């Protein structure tokens, strides 16, 4: 019997003006990429409260990617600067509580960088696949689930 290989679930929070458009460009250019990432579009990376990242891990993500415009190119001028400062704190906080912060990735991808987007996504998916599933929350979730309920 063939063993089911682990396929990671990646949640990607992307900013609408740069990265989302870049990902769209990757699509229209028919660039091949792995499909494990599910994109969530936000207006700007400055909108992202780290609680979204925690929620993603809670709901079963094995890795989270946050991507936005290059510094200086933000559609709202300064959103990504604020976000960058927050991420410096958040990564260290995650490490402190024992959540592997290397499962959290950040990138700057502009609207014309379709190829870069594909590289970033493939990179992240391969790294998380090598790390294996994120078990911490899966164990905690058992507390609130009926043991016999099949969630899918």
């Amino acid at each position, binding site marked *: 019997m063939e063993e089911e290989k682990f396929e990671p679930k990646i949640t990607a929070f992307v900013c609408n003006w740069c990265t989302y458009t870049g990902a769209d460009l990757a699509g229209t250019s028919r660039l091949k990429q792995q499909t494990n990432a599910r994109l969530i579009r936000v207006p700007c990376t400055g909108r992202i*409260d*780290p*609680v*979204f990242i*925690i*929620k993603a891990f*809670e709901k079963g993500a094995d890795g989270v990617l946050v991507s936005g415009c290059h*510094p*200086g190119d933000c559609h709202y001028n*300064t959103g990504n*600067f*604020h976000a*960058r*400062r*927050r*991420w*410096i*704190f*958040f*990564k*260290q*906080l*995650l*490490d*402190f*509580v*024992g*959540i*592997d912060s290397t499962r959290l*990735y*950040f*990138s*700057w991808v502009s609207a014309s960088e379709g190829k870069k987007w594909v590289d*970033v996504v493939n*990179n992240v998916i391969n790294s998380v696949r090598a790390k294996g599933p994120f078990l*911490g*929350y899966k164990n*905690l*979730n058992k*507390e*609130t689930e009926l043991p016999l309920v099949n969630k899918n």
Partner: protein
Amino acid sequence: MKQLIEISKELLESRKAGYIIGYTEDKFHRTKPFIAHTTNDAEKLTFNQKAVHNLAVYLTRLPKPKEGKIGIVAKGCDIKAIIGLIQENQIKRDDIIIIGMNCNGVVKDINIDYNKENSQMKCSICELRTPKHANYIVGALEDFAKSELTKNILAEFEALSAEERWKFWEKEFEKCIKCYACRQACPLCYCEQCIVEKSMPQWIDSSPTTKGNFAWNIIRAFHLSGRCIGCNECERACPVNIPLSLLNRKMGMVAMKEFNYRHGIEPDQPTLIGNYNTSDKEDFIM
């Protein structure tokens, strides 16, 4: 505490202060927060080593007085919270009168008298025994028994592996009953609608399951990063004794290490997390 009472009575009588937030002692010798509205009330004001409460928490919770400013009795460490609030535009320096108290250390457990074991760690390294930024400075400085600075708990904790750290916090957060005492006791948690109260969508579970407790405590620590002034009231208020100061102190150290910033030092210093620098590091960004 004659000087304190005299100053307070004068402020209340002349209507310079609408009310004064201070401490009083009840018939069981418990020191507790007290709001003096009249000169009779002012007779009850006191200050001693059991005055550990951070009164700055009332600045964002009580209604403003109809006439006059708000008087507040504050230790050096409490004033950091007041300055922090001014930095964040929650109160104006002109709206308050700070009666600074020369401080001789405060207790950890308010039910027992002060002694070397029952003394806050922050008192052993305090540099603000004579407070700064106060309108008045009252009281006498005396020697006091300091608690021994035990080994660096934070460094010890960080030496553990990621798995051990997770297990530690899992055990602690299982105890959490989501009473939000930590949030209510914190002078810098003043949001009119806290993120846990947002139900559409519900970002943080309101149920006290371990999973929800992780999210609550992590996000509270994050929202206080670069803003926590280290008064330790959250840990003191917690009914199930979760070591919250570990989390908040860690974020304070990140602010110091990465940005050389401490909150609540100068009222006109721009806040850390509310601002940015175009040259902030980004070695972790792909």
